[in-house]
């Protein structure tokens, strides 16, 4: 086994600075750190694969990636959800290249080995004639993703067979996912996820989305100039930032008055009885006041439930995005649109258009985000920024609210809730989790004399 190393002195500086609310900048795109992240974070964390409504029928499948591991996610004949490595066991060839479809068997184009929906090897071209009776087909089935579990229709996979259960991993985040995904009895994915490659580091994009409402007033200032968003620079800061274990977090953005700008995020009042039915009084209270939910499930899934419209009317929807690292400086973004199954059909269509106008590669808000992601990466190779000894004080500032904002004990939801979203609490917890994971069982190299 190859042990990755981290220089002891750099590691010490890193810990010290993080305790002061600072993050040394060299870690962002450092290639060795990146390798550690892939192996130690993505090798052991729950990663989002898809939503149950993307594979509705027996035989429905989608192909996905857990960073560099190709995955076939499917529903078998009994309606069970399965996930396999998308690779033929014979010579490792990628088995299926389609984005989605429905079939009974997967056949490798190289030598023709074929597998059923349970991953069993069911066909070998000229089997007994070339391999003889000794060949035990049951030993050559598709390799299952070690752990596959769902919560509120969201399917996750984990490459670590000893990983804690998805529900334990999500912890208090489940309470908020119950609002986002369960408020009306279930959400559905519309269409395919949009996919595009951005010049960005995955840590910066997850942080930008899950932990940073403070950027909204400047990055998305064009919406203020156009009179869509309020002039008040604090407008995205009203509400609570909630930090949970395993570095999950959510921002519950309300408004200056603490009340909703429009009740229940501008959903039609026909939906409100469903919310009452499916949510606890505390969850309903939050849902009635929120303008935007935005947050993330560590390491690389983020979500936003905003209110947007391009035709004057406001619509609410749910957008999940997975940040798939491709290199220290590249991210493939996968962007899903979800809406309540029970929502009127017209509203679904209008909300989809509102989504296209705001998020995803063509969304006007997200376009401006891509510019800042790229600008962070483009300057990250300089000697000053790469200096691990920190002679130039190349540290990023995560001091917002640090040791000066106390949690709000009266917030009705679980987790540690701070009474503002202009605070770096989620970001700092993501950094702590990051360091914990990449330095786990790490052989720290002794300094040479």
């Amino acid at each position: 086994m190859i042990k990755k190393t981290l220089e002891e002195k750099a590691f010490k500086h890193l810990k010290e600075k993080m305790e002061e609310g600072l993050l040394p900048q060299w870690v962002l795109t450092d290639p060795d750190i990146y390798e550690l992240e892939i192996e130690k974070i993505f090798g052991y964390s729950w990663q989002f694969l898809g939503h149950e409504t993307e594979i509705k029928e027996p035989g429905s499948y989608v192909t996905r990636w857990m960073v560099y591991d190709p995955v076939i996610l499917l529903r078998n004949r009994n309606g069970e959800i399965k996930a396999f490595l998308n690779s033929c066991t014979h010579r490792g060839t990628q088995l299926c290249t389609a984005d989605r479809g429905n079939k009974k068997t997967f056949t490798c184009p190289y030598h023709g080995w074929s597998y059923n929906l349970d991953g069993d090897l069911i066909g070998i071209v000229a089997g007994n004639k070339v391999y003889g009776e000794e060949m035990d087909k049951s030993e050559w089935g598709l390799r299952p993703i070690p752990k596959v579990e769902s919560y509120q229709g969201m399917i996750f996979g984990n490459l670590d067979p000893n990983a804690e259960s998805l529900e334990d991993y999500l912890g208090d985040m489940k309470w908020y996912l119950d609002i986002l995904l369960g408020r009306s009895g279930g959400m559905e994915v519309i269409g395919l996820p949009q996919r595009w490659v951005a010049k960005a580091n995955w840590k910066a994009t997850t942080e930008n989305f899950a932990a940073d409402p403070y950027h909204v007033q400047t990055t998305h200032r064009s919406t203020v100039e156009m009179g869509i968003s309020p002039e008040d620079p604090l407008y995205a800061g009203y509400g609570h930032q909630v930090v949970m274990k395993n570095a999950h977090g959510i921002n519950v953005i309300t408004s200056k008055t603490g009340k909703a700008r429009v009740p229940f995020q501008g959903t039609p009042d026909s939906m409100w009885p469903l919310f009452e039915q499916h949510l606890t009084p505390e969850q309903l209270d939050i849902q009635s006041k929120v303008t935007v939910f935005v947050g993330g499930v560590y390491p690389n899934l983020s979500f936003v439930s905003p209110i947007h419209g391009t035709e004057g009317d406001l619509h609410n929807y749910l957008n999940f995005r997975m940040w798939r690292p491709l290199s220290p400086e590249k991210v493939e973004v996968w962007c899903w649109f979800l809406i309540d199954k029970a929502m009127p059909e017209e509203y679904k269509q209008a909300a989809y258009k509102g989504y296209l106008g705001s998020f995803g590669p063509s969304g006007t808000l997200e376009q401006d985000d891509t510019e800042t992601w790229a600008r962070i990466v483009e300057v990250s190779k300089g000697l000053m920024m790469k200096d691990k000894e920190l002679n130039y004080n190349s540290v990023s500032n995560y001091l917002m609210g640090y040791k000066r904002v106390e949690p709000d004990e009266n917030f009705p939801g679980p987790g540690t809730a701070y009474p503002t979203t202009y605070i770096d609490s989620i970001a700092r917890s993501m950094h702590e989790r990051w360091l914990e994971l990449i330095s786990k069982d790490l052989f720290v190299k002794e300094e040479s004399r």
Partner: protein
Amino acid sequence: MSSDVKKKITPELQMEITNLYYQEAYFLDNRKYKEWLELFTDDISYKMPLRETVEGVGVENIADDSFYFEETIKSLSTRVNRLYTKSAWVENPATRQRHFITNIIIESTENPNEFRVRSYFLFKRSRGSTIDIEEMFGERVDKVRLENNQWKIASRIVYPDQSVITTMNMSMFL
């Protein structure tokens, strides 16, 4: 409909519609977005679906349920107006862009003032002082209509050839 009833695609018509597209590319590449918007009819439907990878031969690989753009004149106007603000950072500093439009094939329709036009596009973009050149390519299918003696685009569907977009965003119009 028999071919003799169809309006003939004359070299003049070919030239006029080709010029419409050259004019459009000029407006976009020179950031004259408001002028560009004038080239569309008020009932414009402007769509860009996703291309997906599908197994099989002769199988449709344009997703019918997934889009990058699904716009009306109103939502296009919002997008255009935003590009005239000071804080649409993705285009400030401005990207440098070129739309290359080729392979224009015109077909007549039942409406003598309306034509179905297929064209190829190659879009190239340069940003800041970065050395990466971004590109996108594909096909457009338009309905072009003669309105008050002017050629206008009455509907457009943009078909990208990539299933994973490699421009870092889609702030461009195609």
